[in-house]
């Protein structure tokens, strides 16, 4: 029986797997940890504009919901008097002059509603739009909450918050005290929504200068939001000098490197067959991830110090 992670706040441990740089292996590692948790965790995919955890955990969708958090400006051309006030006030440059008539560019519109408030003819209406969907699914390894933001949509942070909240509710209802979260790349809005208030971050990096650079930036975000972090170096043997450099940077910052995972094309081959490496093999890579899981169960990171 797998040992539970110790709860930190309100009996709940949210383990967020992020990376800064994309493609370092977040999803492969998150999925492997999900398998190793053997149903003791709730799983959440918070990479809402490119959700991939569901591709490998064989989910059966049980609930599907619309996500509505955005508004867009619509202009009633019959009421519009063509005064151009909306064009002047819009700082998103979302209203264009289309032959003397205002036209809204829906990708640029941020839904601020300033045009709605200033239009002297009352020709602007702010309409709710469906900007994505979210799902509750069952997998052989526990429940999975995931989502799909429509391409080009805003408010990915709100959708991430919704997925996290739903996962927390399910953990509460099912008496589980661990949530494994597959996070998005980058450091912006969805990453912040994923991290803020979470118990800990597991940062998956790779021994490239880009991986090191991006890890440093995401560690700054962890520090900013006071989330304790640990680091995994994936494909560590691609460049041992960079692996050393990452270890040195982490050690200088007081961040623990909790696993070194080798480069292994078997991970890709397993993914192509829709499997995690820990299901597909008992080789060196799988053993490293099992050891990582044991380590995550036995230790808790401390607050992320600021970098120098």
């Amino acid at each position, binding site marked *: 029986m797998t040992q539970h992670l110790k709860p930190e706040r309100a009996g709940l441990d949210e383990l967020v797997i992020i990376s*800064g740089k994309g493609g370092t292996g977040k999803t492969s590692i998150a999925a492997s940890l999900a398998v190793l948790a053997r149903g003791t965790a709730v799983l959440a995919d918070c990479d809402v504009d*490119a959700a991939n955890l569901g591709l490998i955990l064989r989910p059966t969708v049980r609930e599907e919901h619309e996500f509505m958090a955005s508004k867009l400006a619509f202009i009633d051309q019959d009421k519009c008097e063509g005064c151009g006030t909306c064009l002047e006030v819009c700082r998103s440059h979302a209203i264009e002059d289309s032959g003397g008539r205002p036209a809204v560019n829906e990708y640029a519109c941020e839904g601020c509603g300033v045009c709605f408030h200033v239009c002297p003819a009352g020709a602007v209406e702010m309409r709710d739009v469906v900007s994505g969907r979210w799902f509750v699914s069952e997998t052989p390894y526990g429940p999975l909450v995931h989502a799909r933001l429509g391409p080009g949509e805003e408010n990915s942070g709100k959708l991430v918050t919704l997925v996290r909240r739903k996962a927390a509710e399910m953990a509460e209802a099912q008496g589980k005290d661990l949530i494994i979260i597959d996070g998005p790349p980058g450091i912006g809005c969805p990453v912040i929504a994923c991290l803020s208030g979470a118990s800990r971050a597991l940062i998956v990096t790779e021994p490239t200068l880009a991986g090191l650079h991006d890890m440093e930036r995401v560690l700054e*975000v962890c520090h900013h939001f006071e989330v304790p972090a640990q680091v995994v170096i994936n494909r560590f043997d691609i460049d041992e000098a960079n692996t050393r450099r990452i270890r040195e940077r982490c050690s200088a910052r007081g961040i623990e490197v909790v696993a070194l995972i080798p480069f292994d094309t078997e991970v890709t081959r397993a993914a192509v067959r829709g499997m995690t490496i820990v299901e597909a093999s008992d080789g060196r890579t799988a053993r490293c991830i099992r050891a990582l899981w044991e380590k995550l169960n036995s230790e808790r990171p401390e607050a992320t110090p600021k970098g120098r």
Partner: protein
Amino acid sequence: MTTMTDRADRRVIISVASGKGGTGKTTLAVNLALALSAFHDVRLIDADVEEPNAHIFLRPDLEGSRTVELPVPEVDKDRCRFCGRCAEVCAYGAVTVIADSVLVFPELCHGCGGCTLLCPEKAVTERPRAIGVVEWGRAGEVAFVHGRLNPGEALVPPVTRAVKEFIRPGGVTIIDAPPGTACPAVAAVSGSDYCVLVTEPTPFGLNDLALAVEMVRKLGLPAGVVINRFDLGDRRVEDYCARQRLPVLGRIPFDRKLAEAYARGRTAVDDLPGWRDRFSALGREILERASNGRRPRISDVSDP
């Protein structure tokens, strides 16, 4: 080569995007920029402002920088009558009025200016708040621009827009976009003449390629695909491209030397024999497609 050079006075904007992260966007953007700079006036714009990486490979000499600021509200307590209009118009919850105090949450503010414009007492003014920086310079023949969002900041598109203000008339502009398909990616690719989607032949690569294709179709951008590490996965990405009539512009094999060069911040074009010619050929193919308006836009091609 003369026809290529002749065309250099026309501005061509090529964006490199992907859906999935880590598929090789920066590798492609940087190597294309280096290879094409032998024939064209090339400007590389790194519009992945959350995690910019192109500078690691180009090592530009920086010539200048500019802070990216958002105008956030400041309330004059003497003028304010606490009517609550500012809080009512704010779509982002960045202003709250409780009894006789106004609370502003700058980190939630999108800088739309609504509260300033609509305050009946003219009690709201704006002060600039730094959220990132744009830096520019040169890397040999390549003009270089990138943006950096300050860690802890959430709002990406204003920094992306600030970086894209550096697009100049003439020459070839290559935009390195962030991963994903949400507003940061759209802000980066919109307005380009052609979008190159970089993917890998795995279920993740395929899933995210399809999302990226949906994004470029909505934006009406012509697009083609480059399959990176094409020998490490299966044929499903190739089959998808064929069904969608998306041109596969190039296939890059997995090559440990390439991965090692990338790790050290080196480029294939400069370090590995044979790659300059391959990226030049790929660049010419992309420029040809970007300049050729007669080719069908992929938004015209219906689903099978």
